[in-house]
C-alpha cells in the first residue's frame, strides 16, 4: 500500500493502515508521518472525558452528526485505557456510533492501551496527526477519565469536554482537584435524571474559586435525544474563538509539543537503556542486587545510565 500518497489522497484504508503501523512503532510509517507533518495543524482537537458510562460515546455520536450537517469532516478516536495485562481488549465504543460508519465524511477508530499506563499513548498522538493530515476538521478523542488519562488528554487536545452525570455529589468533591484545571467545558449529561440542576450548581460553585481567564460553561444535555447538543457545540466554538483571540491557542500547542517531545525522548531513552537486549539482563541483575541490599537503586540507575550513554556515543560515532 502506498501510504504517503494514500494519506495525501485521504483514502480511508491508507489512514487506517497508517494508524495500525504507528501503533506498533513502525519506522517506515513514522517516516511518512514526519514527511507529511507540515500538512497537519488544521483540525480542532477535542477531548471527551468523564467517568465510565457517563454517555461519552453517545454524546460524541451526536456531536459528530450535528457537525456533519454543517459539512464538517469528523474523526473520532475512542481510547480504552483499561485493557488487562493479556494485551487483549474489548473496544465497544462503536456500538453507539454504528450509523456514522458509512458516512464518507466520518472516520472512527478504537484504540486499546496496549500496556501503556494512562490512556493517551504516543500512538494516540500519532493517530491525531494522521487524521489531521487527512483533512478532518474536528478530531474527537474519547477516553474514560481515570487518573493519568485525564491529564494526558489535555496535552493532546485544544478543548477538553468533561462529561458529568447527575448525582455524583461527593464524587465531584473527590474529583475536584483533578478535573477543575483540565476541563474547558462541563457537560451534565443524562439531564433527564433527577438532580441535574443540583449537579450543575455544584460545578458552578467550584468554578467560582477558579481564577483562570476562561470560565468553563456548564451545559445540561440529554445525549440520547439530542437535547442540548447545539448549545454544547456553541460552547466549543466559543472556546475555540477564545483560544485564538487570547493567544492561548498557540501557547497551548507549544506546551503540548514540548510535552510530546519530552515524551518521545523518554521513550527513546528507556528503549536504549532498559529495553535494549544487551541491557535487559543488567537491569534484572541490578534489581536482584538492590532487593538484596547489596547495592542501592540510585547507584544502580547511575551505573546503567553511564554504561548506556557510553554505548550511545559509540554507536552514534559509527553512524556519522
Amino acid at each position: 500500500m502506498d501510504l504517503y500518497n494514500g494519506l495525501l489522497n485521504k483514502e480511508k484504508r491508507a489512514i487506517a493502515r497508517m494508524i495500525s503501523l504507528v501503533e506498533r512503532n513502525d519506522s517506515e510509517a513514522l517516516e511518512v508521518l514526519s514527511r507529511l507533518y507540515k500538512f497537519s495543524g488544521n483540525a480542532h482537537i477535542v477531548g471527551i472525558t468523564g467517568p465510565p458510562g457517563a454517555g461519552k460515546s453517545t454524546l460524541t455520536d451526536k456531536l459528530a452528526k450535528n457537525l456533519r450537517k454543517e459539512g464538517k469532516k469528523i474523526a473520532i478516536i475512542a481510547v480504552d485505557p483499561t485493557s488487562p495485562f493479556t494485551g487483549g481488549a474489548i473496544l465497544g465504543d462503536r456500538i453507539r456510533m454504528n450509523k456514522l460508519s458509512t458516512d464518507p465524511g466520518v472516520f472512527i477508530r478504537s484504540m486499546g492501551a496496549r500496556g501503556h499506563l494512562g490512556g493517551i499513548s504516543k500512538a494516540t498522538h500519532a493517530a491525531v496527526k494522521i487524521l489531521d493530515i487527512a483533512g478532518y476538521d474536528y478530531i474527537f478523542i474519547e477516553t474514560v477519565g481515570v487518573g493519568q488519562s485525564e491529564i494526558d488528554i489535555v496535552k493532546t487536545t485544544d478543548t477538553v469536554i468533561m462529561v458529568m452525570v447527575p448525582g455524583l455529589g461527593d464524587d465531584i468533591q473527590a474529583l475536584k482537584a483533578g478535573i477543575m484545571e483540565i476541563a474547558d467545558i462541563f457537560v451534565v449529561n443524562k439531564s433527564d435524571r433527577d438532580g441535574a440542576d443540583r449537579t450543575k450548581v455544584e460545578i458552578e460553585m467550584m468554578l467560582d474559586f477558579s481564577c483562570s481567564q476562561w470560565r468553563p460553561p456548564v451545559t445540561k444535555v440529554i445525549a440520547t435525544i439530542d437535547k442540548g447538543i447545539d448549545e454544547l457545540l456553541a460552547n466549543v466554538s466559543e472556546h475555540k474563538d477564545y483560544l485564538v483571540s487570547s493567544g492561548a491557542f498557540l501557547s497551548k500547542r507549544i506546551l503540548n509539543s514540548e510535552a510530546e517531545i519530552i515524551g518521545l525522548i523518554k521513550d527513546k531513552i528507556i528503549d536504549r537503556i532498559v529495553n535494549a537486549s544487551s541491557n535487559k539482563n543488567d537491569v534484572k541483575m541490578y534489581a536482584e542486587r538492590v532487593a538484596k541490599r547489596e547495592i542501592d537503586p540510585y547507584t544502580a540507575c547511575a551505573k546503567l545510565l553511564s554504561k548506556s550513554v557510553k554505548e550511545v556515543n559509540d554507536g552514534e560515532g559509527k553512524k556519522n
Partner: protein
Amino acid sequence: MEKTIRVLVAKPGLDGHDRGAKVIARALRDAGMEVIYTGLRLTPEQIVQAAIQEDVDAVALSILSGAHNHLLPRVVDLLKEENAFDDILVLGGGVIPDEDIPGLKEKGIAEIFTPGTATQVTIDFIRNNLKK
C-alpha cells in the same frame, strides 16, 4: 514491536440476542487480541466500513437468523469492492446447516464455526490464517 491481532465482532441481521458474539469476543480478548465489538443489527455496509477504518485482521460474524447465505457473501463482496478482501479474513458463526457450508466457503468465507465449537479452535484458526 509485536503485532496485535484485531478482530471485528458483529451480529448482523435483525433477530434477537448477541450472547454468542459476546462469548467469542471475550475469548478473543483473553487470547490477547483487540476486539472491536459493534453490537447488534449492523448492515453489511456498516460492518465493512467499520472493518476498514479499524484495519482489522478478521471479521467474525455471528448469525442466528438464517440469513447467512445472504449476509456473509454480501460482506465478502463489499470487502472486494473496497479492495480490502485480500487483507481481511471473514468468519461466520452460529446456527448454519452443514449443507450450506461448502457454498459459503466457495464464496470466500474462510471458515464457519457452528455451536459447540471450542473457542480455542476459532482463536487458532485466526492466528494461523492471517492474510496480512
